[in-house]
């Protein structure tokens, strides 16, 4: 049933990376509960443009929960109050009439703010470049059935591969640690035969790069997994710890 809300928004505004930034308050009237959170922001931005103001910069792309672009820290939680959804899939029916909603960008030294709610998440791309891939020969693709993969392994790998790299894990973690993201990217290959040749070097390189980027260490609070829109499990972090320690102890390179 459709219902309209009046809302008070407190949004982080920051001109650029150097600007100190601060909260700006906005009042919105007659917001439909059927709107997504980002559509509510579109309404606000249109209002700001009409009034001659600067619209709020925020990341978005597919708006169907699979691209990992949207990244708002809403009322103290990444992607807002619901479990297993991204901000674009969060609907205004999750909020109450007259509620004050505080919206902040992801906070981490490895994710510097570019403008308003947009942060630079290139650190994730650099971690992937350090080893989050498999090297394959060119030519025709092999027959899919020529390499046998147990169903449980395929499922587990797929669950890890569901990571959309949005950075909610880093945003939720009290240490701004990227362990859940990196462990998902390590696990999706570690569980498959195609990932085996580079398995040890991959985890060493990716962890080394993760540390270089200035993410914190893991305290196993589980906040990352609880807030992950794709509900990536902590078992992947345990697997990465295992792989990292055995790789460090057993690779040929000194």
């Amino acid at each position, binding site marked *: 049933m459709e219902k309209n809300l009046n809302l008070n928004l*407190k949004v982080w505004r920051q001109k650029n990376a150097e600007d100190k930034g601060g*909260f700006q308050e906005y009042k919105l009237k007659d917001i439909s509960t059927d709107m997504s959170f980002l559509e509510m922001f579109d309404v606000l931005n249109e209002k700001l443009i009409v009034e001659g103001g600067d619209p709020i910069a925020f990341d978005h792309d597919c708006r169907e929960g699979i691209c990992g672009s949207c990244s708002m*820290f809403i*009322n*103290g*939680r990444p992607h807002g*109050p619901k479990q297993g959804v991204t901000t674009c899939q969060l609907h205004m029916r999750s909020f109450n009439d007259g509620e004050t909603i*505080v919206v*902040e960008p992801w*906070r*981490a*030294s*490895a994710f510097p703010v570019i403008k308003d709610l947009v942060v630079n998440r290139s650190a994730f791309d650099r971690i992937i470049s350090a080893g989050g891939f498999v090297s394959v020969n060119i030519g025709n693709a092999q027959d899919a059935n020529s390499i046998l993969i147990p169903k449980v392994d395929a499922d587990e790998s797929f669950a890890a591969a569901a990571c959309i790299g949005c950075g909610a894990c880093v945003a*939720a973690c*009290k*240490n*701004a*640690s990227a*362990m859940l993201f990196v462990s998902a990217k390590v696990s999706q290959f570690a569980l498959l035969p195609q990932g085996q040749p580079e398995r040890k070097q991959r985890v060493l390189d990716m*962890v*080394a790069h*993760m*540390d270089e980027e*200035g*993410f*914190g*260490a*893991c*305290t*196993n*609070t*589980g*906040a990352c997994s*609880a*807030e992950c829109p794709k509900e990536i499990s*902590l*078992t992947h*972090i*345990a*697997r*990465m*710890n*295992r*792989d*990292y*320690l055995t790789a*460090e*102890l057993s*690779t040929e*390179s*000194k």
Partner: protein
Amino acid sequence: MNWVTKMFSSSIGQKFIMALTGLFLCSFLVIHMIGNLQLFKNDFGLAFNTYAVFMTTFPIIKVVSYLLYASILYHAFKGISLVYKNNKARPVKYAVQNGAANSHWTSRSMGILGTIILVFIVVHMKNFWFEYKFGHEIGYTSYFTNMATGELKAEPMSAEYTQFNKIEENIISNETGQYRVVVVKDLYKEVATEFKEWWLVALYVLCMFAVAFHLYHGFQSAFQTLGINHSKYNGLIKFIGIWFFSVFIPAGFAAMPLYFFFK
């Protein structure tokens, strides 16, 4: 960089040592608990005092105890440095952060809980370990066991009395019968006197809550760090972590000062 230095300076490597030293300290708590249960024995402290001599003189125990001191220091100071480093990973804090929505408060408070425990360890070691090894306040007590009836009597020695060995044992006979006489440094009496101070008892009991909450997260967390996270074992690890290390062990330790206070 040498691979050993590289491994132990990486985020996972540092956590690995935190987990290993943490579990070692947990195993110490079990031994410490079993030994201290002798405080509840109704023998004027004979068993406890004999045990205290064994723990401070037996060579293997001595080696392990130095390893233990090193582990406590490493775990504490590495922990503090990790909290500092992890804080730096988020230089600008959130205005609103709802941590309770996604994690247990103990897991977010390991640094402060650990600091309370470190302060407690310093106080605790000053009270008993330092007094026992270097202090002059702890006197000697003679225990007479009637070898025919098993009847036990304890008599404090004079304040000036001292002996070469921490424990000396003799058999004496007189007209009332044959006695086994044990003269030993009376740590039991020190424990019994110290725990008559209400503020010290309160401090000990409060600190045991810190131990309980630290281990509520810490024991389980150590296994996750070591890479042990499997549906076959998780239930057992959780059960031991919560019921044994976070309830039974701290409750048992808290019972000791309370027992002497109300005795």
